[in-house]
Structures are given as structure tokens and as C-alpha cells.
């Protein structure tokens, strides 16, 4: 037995570091007691899917999508994502979707913000405008039908019109197959 003292102290030090961890909060407050509302990025759920439904009516209106295009410029999405090609932020016109390609997933990307630069717009823009922008973002990679995706730009066009883009196929497009145990 060498150096018994340091070894004897180790359990006490571990206990000291665990003091905070063991603190129990029984009442988290009304705000934290609400059901967590976000969008799953996975097909597998615990119990039923409790995610808020996607507000699809904006995605079905050409006006709403073109409003989304205007707001995409106005709120400076274009500053990082450019006209879909990406730059400071990731490209939005390809098939790669870090946080999912579904409308409600894009909605929560905008509302919640994402690590490494995507700011949260929580409380800053009316919800319907977020749906409009999210719908437009989907049109950038040809996810919307051509009668809804914008056909023209207010600025000098730098890329093919959203309407004329070929549809990209994000990997989460078809539901994931749950692997069966061998």
C-alpha cells in the first residue's frame, strides 16, 4: 500500500463533485412542466408520435411560397445560405439535410436555431411567416410541385427558377425501415 492518503481521498472527492448532481428538484415550474414540443428527426418514437402537425396549407399556396421567398431575402437568410447554394450556412438546394427535410423540421430549425451559427427566430417572426419561409426553403431543392414553386425573382436571377429545378431526393425522404433483430 503506497500513498494511502490520496487513495483514501478519492471517494470523498467523487462524492463532493456529485453534490450538485444529487440535488433533486421536485417542482420544475409551470414553464418547464409543459410537454416538450419539438420535431423528431427520427421515425422511431416512444409511444405515439406527439409532434405538432405540419402546417401544410402554406406549402400548398403559391402566394405563401413567394412570400416566403421575399422574407428569405428580407430576414437575411440569403446572407448565409445565399440563393440556396450555401456559403456561411449549408446549401439548401441539394439532397443533404442535417436536421431533416420535412416542413415541420425546417420550421423548428428556424424557430429553435441550430448549433454553429443558425440563429433562433423564436418570438421574432409570426408563426405563419416561419411556415412560409420553410415552404420556400423546400422549393429550393425542387420538393414542391411546379405550380407552387416560384417561377421568377425580383432580383437578377442567379440560378434556375425554383419551379424548374429537378427534385433532389434527401435520404430521409422514405420512412426508415426498422431493422429486425436477427
Amino acid at each position, binding site marked *: 500500500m503506497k500513498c494511502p492518503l490520496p487513495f483514501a481521498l478519492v471517494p470523498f472527492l467523487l462524492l463532493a463533485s456529485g453534490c450538485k448532481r444529487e440535488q433533486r428538484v421536485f417542482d420544475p415550474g409551470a414553464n418547464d412542466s409543459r410537454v416538450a414540443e419539438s420535431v423528431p428527426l427520427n421515425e422511431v418514437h416512444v409511444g405515439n408520435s406527439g409532434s405538432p402537425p405540419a402546417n401544410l396549407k402554406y406549402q400548398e399556396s403559391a402566394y405563401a411560397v413567394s412570400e416566403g421567398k421575399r422574407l428569405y431575402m428580407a430576414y437575411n437568410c440569403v446572407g448565409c445560405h445565399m440563393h440556396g447554394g450555401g456559403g456561411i450556412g449549408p446549401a439548401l438546394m441539394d439532397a443533404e439535410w442535417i436536421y431533416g427535410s420535412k416542413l415541420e423540421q425546417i420550421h423548428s430549425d428556424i424557430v429553435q436555431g441550430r448549433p454553429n451559427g443558425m440563429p433562433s427566430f423564436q418570438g421574432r*417572426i*409570426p408563426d405563419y411567416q416561419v411556415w412560409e419561409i420553410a415552404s420556400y426553403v423546400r422549393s429550393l431543392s425542387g420538393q414542391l410541385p411546379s405550380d407552387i414553386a416560384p417561377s421568377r425573382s425580383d432580383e437578377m436571377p442567379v440560378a434556375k427558377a425554383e419551379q424548374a429545378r429537378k427534385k433532389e431526393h434527401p435520404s430521409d425522404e422514405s420512412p426508415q425501415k426498422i431493422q429486425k433483430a436477427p
Partner: protein
Amino acid sequence: MIVTANIPGFSGNQSALNPTGAGAAHTEHTFALIFWITSIVYCLVMIVLVIAVFRHRHSLDTLPEPQTTTDPGDRFAAKAVGGAMVVTVVLLFVMLIGSFLTSRALGKMNNEPAMTINIYGHQWWWEVEYPNDEPYKYVRTANEIHVPIGVSLHIHGTSRDVIHSFWAPNVHGKRDFMPGYETDVVMRVDQPGRWRGQCAEYCGEQHAHMSFYMVAESKSEFQKWLADQAQSANPPLNAQTIHGQQVFLTHACVMCHTVRGSTAASRVGPDLTHLASRATIAAGMLPNTTGNLAGWIMNAQAIKPGSRMPPNQMSGTDLQDLLAYLETLL
């Protein structure tokens, strides 16, 4: 002035027949020239026609006598027709030259040294800029164009979205503002007053509610106004207005509007740094009162459907504090 000064409905504001600016006066002179020449000629032709019809009238019971011609009669007719033709050609040339002189006078105005004002058409409001070599003196406002009287104004305009047309009838002719194309015109206001103008090119749902005022005032009043506008916004001083500013900066307002002196610096909507100094809101649509402002903030879509201002839901306290803050922005 010359034509219709005394006819009610033609002499007031937003009327090209009541020129208060140099350009509108030139145009109105041509209008008066053509109006009087054509009116007098029309009356003379009608009088001659009535006399001719009256002299050659006959009863329905008898057949008209066959037309006979005499040599002196033919000669008189030839002279009359020839004379009228000469007079017509001369009058057409008078109008042509009058019109030419007007165009020349308007063109000459463009060469005068002038104070530059930038005006940008938006759906559906006007952005007004007074550029300055020193950036901190740059003034940006909306829908209210303060101008000094008797000074040539170089209006440098373009559109931020669709085609608009800038027209203050009392001051100058209309000028189209095209997206991606810059328009320059020199105008001058000679009489103090608030001269109303409007977009004169259909530009969407709220085209009819896209108006502005040219506020013409003396040079010293204008310089004072400009110096006031160049200042940053008044900082909020009491608890209510401090909270009001917080509401402004944490709600949707901050996404589109600027209040110089705070962190709000977006240029999508009108600059609100000196909102309370303006007489109207929503591009001349409503008087700038607390009630109108509250309605406009809560649901602008009910007042001006299609406008870019979204509905903003907030609690009564937040709204009252926000209004109190906005009213300090003198």
C-alpha cells in the same frame, strides 16, 4: 391658375391646375395655351356651323332648291377655306412651339445645381433619404418629403420591387420609378405648404394607398428639421418607455424597422427613428395618433390588406408601453 383658379375642385391640393412648383407651372402654361386655343376654335366652328345650318334651313314640305354656284361665291369660299387652313396651321405651330418651349424649360431645370434627395418606391410606401458626405448626418425617413422652398431639388429615384410612379401634381410632372433603373429629375417648390402626391402607376393591392406629402417650408425651417432628423432617437427615460423599447427589440418590429440609437437596424420597413414627428402613418393613409398606431401594430392587415406589416399579437401592457415608447420618437 390661368384656367381654373376660381373653379372649386380644380384649385386645391393634388391638382396639376394649381401649380406650386416651377415644373408644374411650365406644364400648366402649355395646358392653358392648348386649352384656350382649342376652346376658342371649337366655339367659332360651332357658331359658323349653326349659322350655316340656320341660313340654309327649309320646310320639310318642299324639295330643296338645287345648289347653284357663282364665280364670286366660289372665290369667297376658296378664300374662307384657305384662310381657315392658314389659321389652323399657324395655331398648330403655336401649340407645337409652346410645347417645345415647355420641354426646353423643364429640360433646363435638370442642369441647375440642386440638392439631392433619394426616393425609393416600395410596396406600398416611399423611402426618403437625404444623403450627406458625413455618414452620421445621413437622414432617412418615409412618406414625408420635407423640402426648402425656392431650392432646386434633384430627385434621384428607383423602385425596390415593382414599377411605381412618383407624382406630386402641384409640384412637377410624374416620373416612373423602375426596379433596377435609376431615374433623375430636378424639381422646385415655390410655395410653402403640404403638397400631397401619390403613386401614379398601378403597383398592387394597395396602390391607391401609396401617398406621400411634400412638405415645403422656408430654408431655415428646413435646415432645423434636417438637423433634428439627423439625431439618433431619444433614449427612453421612464420605466414605461424603457419596457416599451424592450418590447420593440424583442418582438417582430426589430426584424424590419430601424430606430437609430438602438440595435434595431433593419431596412425592410420605414425608418422609425423620428416616427412621432410624422403627421401620418401607413403612407399617408391614417393620421399618426395613438389609436391608429395601436390598430396598425395589432393588425395592419385589417387596415391595409396585403401590406408587408404582419399582425403582432402582444399583451395590453406590452402594447401600451410600446406605444408610449413610439410616441417619444420625436
